């Protein structure tokens, strides 16, 4: 077979892939941009609020309670702390107020002079990096970043470097002259590479320096374990082993006794360092220090774990939970308006509960305070920009590809829980699912538009067809990919047409005979006076 013919078997699908990919991306970009432009240029107007007399005392009370911070005393008593602003001789003065649950003002004064010691909740997301951040940094025009942990006996000196080998999942140590000094893996620090066992797939890393050292210590979370790696002390310690369970999240409560930005003024010396490890199966493990203690507790299935905070004093371990009426607010902003209309257009209940976590892991309710919050502010009728965005999106989504729509539904759930190291799946998830950009809003309309594209392709291709197989293939292709398919078809298959001299219909020139009547191209008109003798 000649190369010219053989190459067509590769070039034809390659061309289709190339054009289709570009057209699909162009359409996706349009589907991003157009609704965004609509949103940008048509801002909504919030309801001006009900005109009328000043709010009633009950309404003012509701607002005060709703806006106050709810603090617990160690015995479980709940106080409401709010701010009050008054104008005196043209100057505004704010003062802190402490109320009890029966609307009695217990105290007011300067914020720093609060009369009671309330329970503190020194929780923070440690300043580490999740796997997505770690891996996203790895490749760029400036080359991959390398995780290199130094060992610094003093401020000026670096004696060792420990470099993380991504593919091998362990650290390799080098001295200051570049000679290998050891390997650090899940089984500790070893001298030879064949002795070390790799870590599991890393999920989370954070690092800090102990009070008396310049050498960073790592907290290294993999799927099932949490390690503390101290290269200066040459130790790899397993802090927590979830066995077959998979660690989902780590939260720290005063864990490292380090003053962070958020707690500059707070004094958490009364609280034991605590680390909460949540697994995917719903277990919550609490790792405490001073003294070391590990216990497990479960929260009710309908709780949102992120609304629960833990504080461990010397004697007790407390858990605080904030609850609100209705399901949690959806993360995607396009779904929030419906949620608001359904659950927040009228006053709704909120509550805060204080529990004690017992050594057996059970939660004992100490106190609960419930209040009614005013409804959310809403947009005037027809002025919600999200409605316009949705409408614009509705129209632009009609040109989405039905096949990809189907594939995205099918694979979305599979991909969204994918946990592969390379995270390219995560990138696809972001494109497909995070913004819901490949999910059409009305499948019937989308299919109808696809059918229209098929009709256009059919009208275009009927007179140009060279074979029925090719013609049918393209019709199916256009139907599967909608506008992108039609554009791809036109880019690759558009050829000129002429009028057939015999039947008068349009015919293509890719074949010698007319597709309708079978006649070939006409012979030219010969003159009697032509001097053609040598043929």
């Amino acid at each position, binding site marked *: 077979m000649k*190369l*010219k013919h053989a*190459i*067509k078997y*590769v*070039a*034809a699908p*390659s*061309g289709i*892939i*190339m*054009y289709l*990919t*570009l057209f699909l991306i162009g359409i996706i970009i349009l589907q991003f941009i157009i609704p965004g432009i609509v949103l940008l240029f048509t801002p909504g107007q919030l309801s001006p609020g009900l005109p009328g007399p000043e709010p009633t005392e009950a309404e003012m009370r509701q607002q005060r309670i709703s806006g106050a911070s709810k603090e617990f005393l160690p015995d479980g008593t709940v106080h409401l702390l709010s701010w009050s602003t008054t104008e005196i001789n043209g100057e505004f003065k704010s003062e802190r107020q402490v109320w009890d649950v029966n609307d009695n003002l217990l105290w007011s004064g300067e914020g720093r002079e609060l009369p009671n010691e309330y329970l503190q909740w020194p929780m923070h997301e440690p*300043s*580490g*990096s999740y796997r997505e*951040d*770690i*891996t996203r940094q*790895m*490749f*760029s*025009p*400036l*080359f*991959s*970043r*390398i*995780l*290199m*942990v*130094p060992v*610094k006996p003093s401020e000026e000196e*670096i004696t060792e*470097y420990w*470099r993380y*080998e991504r593919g091998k999942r362990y650290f390799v140590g*080098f001295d*200051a*002259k*570049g000679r290998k000094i050891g390997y650090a893996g899940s089984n500790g620090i070893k001298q030879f590479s064949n002795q070390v066992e790799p870590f599991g797939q890393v999920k989370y*890393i*954070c*690092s*800090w*320096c*102990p*009070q*008396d050292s*310049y050498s*960073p210590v790592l907290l290294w979370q993999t799927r099932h374990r949490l390690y503390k790696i101290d290269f200066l002390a040459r130790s790899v310690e397993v802090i927590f082993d979830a066995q077959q369970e998979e660690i989902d999240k780590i939260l720290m409560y005063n864990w*490292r006794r*380090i003053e*962070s930005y958020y707690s500059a003024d707070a004094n958490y010396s009364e609280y034991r360092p605590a680390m909460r490890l949540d697994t995917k199966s719903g277990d919550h493990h609490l790792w405490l220090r001073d003294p070391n203690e590990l216990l497990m507790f479960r929260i009710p299935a309908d709780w949102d774990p992120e609304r629960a905070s833990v504080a461990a004093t010397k004697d007790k371990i407390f858990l605080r939970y904030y609850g609100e009426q209705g399901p949690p607010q959806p993360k995607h902003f396009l779904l929030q308006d419906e949620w608001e209309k359904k659950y927040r257009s009228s006053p709704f209940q909120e509550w805060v509960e204080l529990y004690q976590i017992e050594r057996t892991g059970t939660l004992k309710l100490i106190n609960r305070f419930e209040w009614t919050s005013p409804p959310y502010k809403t947009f005037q009728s027809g002025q919600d920009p999200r409605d316009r965005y949705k409408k614009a999106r509705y129209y632009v989504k009609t040109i989405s590809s039905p096949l990809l729509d189907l594939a995205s539904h099918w694979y979305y759930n599979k991909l969204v829980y994918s946990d592969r*190291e*390379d*995270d*390219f799946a995560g990138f696809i998830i972001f494109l497909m699912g995070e913004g819901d950009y490949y999910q059409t809003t009305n499948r019937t309309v989308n299919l109808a538009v696809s059918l229209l594209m098929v009709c256009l392709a059919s009208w275009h291709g009927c007179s140009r067809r060279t074979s029925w197989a090719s013609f049918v293939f393209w019709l199916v292709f256009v139907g599967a990919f909608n506008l992108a398919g039609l554009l791809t078809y036109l*880019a690759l298959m558009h050829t000129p047409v002429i009028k057939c001299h015999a039947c008068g219909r349009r015919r293509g020139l890719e074949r010698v005979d007319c597709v309708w009547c079978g006649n070939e191209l006409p012979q030219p008109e010969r003159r009697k006076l032509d001097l053609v003798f040598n043929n």
Partner: protein
Amino acid sequence: MRFIALVKNQLQEILGGLIVVVIVFTFLSGFILWSGIRHPDPYHYSEYSGITPGNTVSFYTLLQRPKPLWGVGPVLLVSAVILGAMLASQQFAEQQKRRTWAFTIHRSVSRSTILWARFSAAVIAFILCLGVMWTMFYLYVSAMGASPCPLPVRVLIEGWIFILLGLVIYFGAALSEVSAKKKYTTKYFGAVFAGMILVLALVQLSLTLCFAVIALALVILVSDTMDTFLSREF
């Protein structure tokens, strides 16, 4: 003999551009390396100066660029892209502009030989201009011990990936030049596709996937260019 004559002809034609690229790349990269190596405490020390006792350590402090080569990366990538675009322009656009295709095509060789000669000349150009220089820079830095830790081989591989991306740009631009479609329709889709692959390759987190993306792109572009050239009318 005929193939070699075609390759030689191509290399002669693009020689001027190659020399310029080699000189600029070598000069810029050499300067960057020299500046990096001159630093009294090379590699990471200055980057770690923010580490103090009792404080959290920002993760990005621990994520280090492979100094002093990291500054060469963007120069290498940009040089590869420019070289690719320039080669495609000289090999295909110039011929179209000067209307010498008929003279070129009417050779006692097949059209595919003419095309492969061009491709081979381009690959040789990339290897000689950028590949050799980049490998020499890497070996020099490794041998000199300009960093306390030996540079991982991954850095060398990533540099070669940039060169491959330049080759992708070359094929994309070549496809655009060879295409007989109108400029306001899909003529430049080849170049756009190559640009998209460049971005897609750089967002990959695994080298294996990166190579896979590049390999797939090369298959698509090379086959499409071949088919277009073999069936094109001049």
